[in-house]
């Protein structure tokens, strides 16, 4: 066993180091053409007399894209806090470790191959240029002026590296969604390998169809997903669903006669902190997806995002209060996240009024989805499926329902007919089928080679000791009494 462990880690390390030899053997390249020269279109009528040293729009766009990318990066902390807070203290180190490593793994593999498959030029099904960002690129030239290997990103006038880091943090978000649904029972290194599969195959291929100029983006009425209800949240959600089903429920979650046992999380303070960090990060996730500092769009998207999240929280609180008897805090947290996921696809094309409805439905859906997944005995300790999968699908439909002729996108309720809605359904179904099949294969391969689930004894004792040999809270100090 010990030997096997060592072999696995050596293999993983070697795989990660592979690109180093490639990078080192590469010829040094001339730096990509910088900012101003490349922007100037070929057909400029006359040279401007005194061109400014830098273009204000170019600078503002780049800063906007980078700052929002950093906000999305910060969402990793949000996921870590929500997930560890909603699980038991004996598994806290394990969950935190997964959230840490999933982003690191994503950076490596998305840089190596993921970004090329997702955004590189190629077939309608996957891209095949730009491995490790190498190849011709004259960003920030846009439109027809762009002559490079990432044509699908030629609509935004920022440097390639800014485009890359923004897409990179999105890939990290999709991968980290899985971690909550499989929490408290999956082997650490099995999750590690699955994270790589997410960044190498699952996320980039489905993403290429939608954001990489693939077949869904070139339908007669193109499938639309502004900031990733499908691309990020549903993809993560479908992969989480197959993982949670294959793993089976945690010991003691469901009794033999079908009753649901509550397994309360260990720190609602952490879960709440995590929700607010995620909400904050969403102000980068959605408004940043303009990939340009467009004043109208980013203001509209910010307020739509905020309203949907808030209404989702109110809705989930009241649904929990009315149907479960108590305004469950964990449901309120899930409700806010549900509203945020739901508004993500349509945030650029809807009005604040529509955002209210989108968030409201999201908040109601999430509570019943939690109860539904418990009913069919799919154990999801943090509600990741109810938040990201169910509301990812709902949010994607919303583009076809609520798009208010902003940017030329019209939904069913705004006189656009059913064309957009049908495209949305085609996208939801095809992405769902693809991710379920490929993630199922990935999980099964991992299961056959390294196993998926920890031993029963280890699960009872907690994965912190079994997988990591340390505890999150070794220094237990009791609460003092309070005078009344």
């Amino acid at each position: 066993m010990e030997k096997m462990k060592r072999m696995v880690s050596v293999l993983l390390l070697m795989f990660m180091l592979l690109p180093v030899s490639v990078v080192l053997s590469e010829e040094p390249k001339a730096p990509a053409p910088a900012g101003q020269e490349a922007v100037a279109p070929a057909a400029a009528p006359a040279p401007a007399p005194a061109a400014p040293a830098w273009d204000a729009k170019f600078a503002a766009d780049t800063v906007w894209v980078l700052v929002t990318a950093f906000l999305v990066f910060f969402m990793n902390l949000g996921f870590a806090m929500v997930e560890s807070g909603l699980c038991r203290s004996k598994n806290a180190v394990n969950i935190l470790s997964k959230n840490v490593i999933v982003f690191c793994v994503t950076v490596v593999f998305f840089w190596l191959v993921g970004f090329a498959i997702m955004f590189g030029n190629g077939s309608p099904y996957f891209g095949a240029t730009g491995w490790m960002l190498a190849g011709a690129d004259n960003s920030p030239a846009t439109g027809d002026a762009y002559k490079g290997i990432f044509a699908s990103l030629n609509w935004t006038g920022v440097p390639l590296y800014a485009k890359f880091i923004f897409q990179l943090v999105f890939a990290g978000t999709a991968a980290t969604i899985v971690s909550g649904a499989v929490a408290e029972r999956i082997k650490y290194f099995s999750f590690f390998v699955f994270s790589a599969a997410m960044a190498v195959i699952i996320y980039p291929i489905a993403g290429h169809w939608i954001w990489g100029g693939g077949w869904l983006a070139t339908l007669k009425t193109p499938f639309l997903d502004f900031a990733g209800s499908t691309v990020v949240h549903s993809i993560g959600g479908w992969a989480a669903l197959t993982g949670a089903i294959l793993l089976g429920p945690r010991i003691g979650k469901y009794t033999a006669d079908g009753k649901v046992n509550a397994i309360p999380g260990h720190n609602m303070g952490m879960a709440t902190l995590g929700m607010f960090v995620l909400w904050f990060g969403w102000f980068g996730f959605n408004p940043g997806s303009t990939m340009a500092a467009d004043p109208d769009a980013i203001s509209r998207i910010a307020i739509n995002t905020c309203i949907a999240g808030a209404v989702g929280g109110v809705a989930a609180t009241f649904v929990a209060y009315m149907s479960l008897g108590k305004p469950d805090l964990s449901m309120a947290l899930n409700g806010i996240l549900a509203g945020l996921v739901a508004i993500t696809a349509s945030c650029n094309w809807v009005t604040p009024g529509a955002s209210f409805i989108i968030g409201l439905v999201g908040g109601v859906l999430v509570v019943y989805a939690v109860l539904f997944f418990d009913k069919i005995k799919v154990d999801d300790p943090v509600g990741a499926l109810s938040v990201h999968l169910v509301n990812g699908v709902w949010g994607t439909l919303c583009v076809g329902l609520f798009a208010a002729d902003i940017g030329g996108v019209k939904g069913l309720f705004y006189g656009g007919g059913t064309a957009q809605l049908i495209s949305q359904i085609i996208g939801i179904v095809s992405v769902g089928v693809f991710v379920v099949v490929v993630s199922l294969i990935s999980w099964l391969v991992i299961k056959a080679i390294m196993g998926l689930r920890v031993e029963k004894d280890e699960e009872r004792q907690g994965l912190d000791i079994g997988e990591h040999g340390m505890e999150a809270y070794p220094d237990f100090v009791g609460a003092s009494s309070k005078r009344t």
Partner: protein
Amino acid sequence: MKKIEAIIKPFKLDDVKDALNEAGIHGMTVTEVKGFGRQKGHTELYRGAEYVVEFLPKIKIEAIVSDEDVEKVIETILKTARTGNIGDGKIFVYDIKDVIRIRTGERGKEAI
């Protein structure tokens, strides 16, 4: 000498300690414990599923007192720890054979 062992509600600890101090009792050992009596546990709700908290948090106070102080200590605890609701706790009285102060080696009442 007797040992007075009292199980009380946690939020009553400060009141009981202060009252015992005023009554001239200057040493005690306090432990956080869990348990149930006639009060039993109670149910809580988490994400739509009920669960029973069977062991409730309580405080155990142990104090060694001389025989003549026993009634006074019991009275004090009864007065300060009582809320009148179920779950107020219990007081146990034990005989103590000997007490030794480690620092000086004193024994018996001197060591209390």
